[in-house]
């Protein structure tokens, strides 16, 4: 085989899901420019380098924007979270009413177990903002 060894092994989506299944919230960081990215991919969006390393996220974040989705079955939060590492992800904030989730709220990650584990956020204790 003449494949390029830099891309050997499971792909980034597979690594994301298998890490989550083990209870770990992992992010990619560019070894060249230091930028963190989400969702996972093969290259750094910032500088184009294909040399990315996986590291465990701190789980700390800030709400960048938030909406309450209103459905007959009930209302729920959908939010964009700016992670401390610099990447942004869609998620939801739990533990408070959906319409109490506001921009600039400090949050921290939780992994919800299940057949499809997922990252959600709760307000950081002591953040009264």
């Amino acid at each position, binding site marked *: 085989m003449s494949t390029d060894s830099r891309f050997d092994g499971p792909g980034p*989506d597979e690594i994301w899901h298998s890490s989550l299944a083990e209870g770990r919230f992992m992010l990619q960081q560019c070894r060249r420019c230091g930028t963190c990215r*989400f*969702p996972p991919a093969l290259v750094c*969006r910032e500088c184009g380098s294909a040399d990315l390393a996986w590291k465990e996220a701190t789980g700390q974040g800030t709400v*960048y*924007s*938030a*909406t*309450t*989705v*209103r459905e007959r079955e009930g209302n*729920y939060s*959908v*939010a*964009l979270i700016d992670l401390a590492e610099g990447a*942004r*992800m*869609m*998620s*939801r904030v739990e533990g408070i009413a959906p*319409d109490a989730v506001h*921009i600039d709220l400090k949050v921290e990650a939780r992994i919800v177990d299940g057949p*499809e584990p*997922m990252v959600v956020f709760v307000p950081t204790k002591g953040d009264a903002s």
Partner: protein
Amino acid sequence: MSHPLRGSAAIVGIGNTKRWKAPGRTPFDQLQEAAILALEDCGLGLKDVDGLFCAISSSGLPVLNVAERLGISVRHADGTMVGGASFLFHLQSAVAALENGLCDVALICYGSNQLSAGGRLVSMPDPQPYEAPYKPRYPISSYALAAARHMHEFGTTRENLADVALAARAWANLNPDAFARGPLTRDEILSSRMVSDPITRADCCLVTDGGAALVVTRADRARDLAKPPAYVLGTGVAVSHRQIAAMPDLTTTAAVESSRRAYAMAGVSPTDIDHVMVYDAFTITTLLFLEDLGFCPKGEGGAFVSSGAIAPGGRLPVNTNGGGLSCNHPGMYGLFTIIEAVEQLRGACGARQVQGAEIALAHANGGVLSSQATAILGSAATL
């Protein structure tokens, strides 16, 4: 020196089925009717068409389906699919292809049965596994997140957003072909059902059926056809993301880049534009595009609209057909921004006609503020 593509091609024929509620017609039926109307409008025939440009929500192979149905012998084709802005991407591609002799008569076409097929956006096979677990309403929640951020940073209010919808309705009331006509009040909009905060049902575009088509030729041929040509003075496109979480700044769209490219090619600036069409999928998109296209400073879109600037009698005629909010919105609306711009340049708009319109700007959006495309059209006097 002017850009080599400036005025090199012209829109010579337009087709608009105006069948906003047409049960029993497929998207391809709407598209074919629009194509026939557009060719008859300029006096050309299907056998003259050798460049085919189309995108359709329900088909992964639109060029093949359309070429077969219309019997077009394709010498050049482009089925770029970037959502509602696709057709302005196609226009840029058609202008380049015409100038380089890859085709002589370009047909850009679209059809939809979104309303008759059941209402909600026809979903394209494009799963988003990093969003889906959180169940955002697609695409409404993405636009809601942008609106919430705009309100946070600039103090934009729901009243400002409501005034976008009011202006659109006021224009629609001057357009006998608009789907939603009749009185509408700010209170009715503000008390409309909340869907994804801060976006209510009244902040969302219509759901209709419809079909539209353009015929584009090189400028030399355009002069000899039936209707006054709308010359393509400038085009520009840009793509910034697919998922809303990957949009760098939710208050500034890639319309900044697409319009900069279009203005540069056309050699004009926002103050030269007589008539504006922006893709109003939601009320917030009109605000964002007025800012990003340079018609008002960033953050001042709300105040600009609430001053009455874009409504009939205001200083900038915007979305004079009634827009996606009150005229029509068959799944992907982009082509209709061009249709209205051409009709205004032809002086064919009756009660809603912008007097002396010589330069029109049409801007379209696709995905979730993801793709942006700007076209600047002019009458013969602007060449």
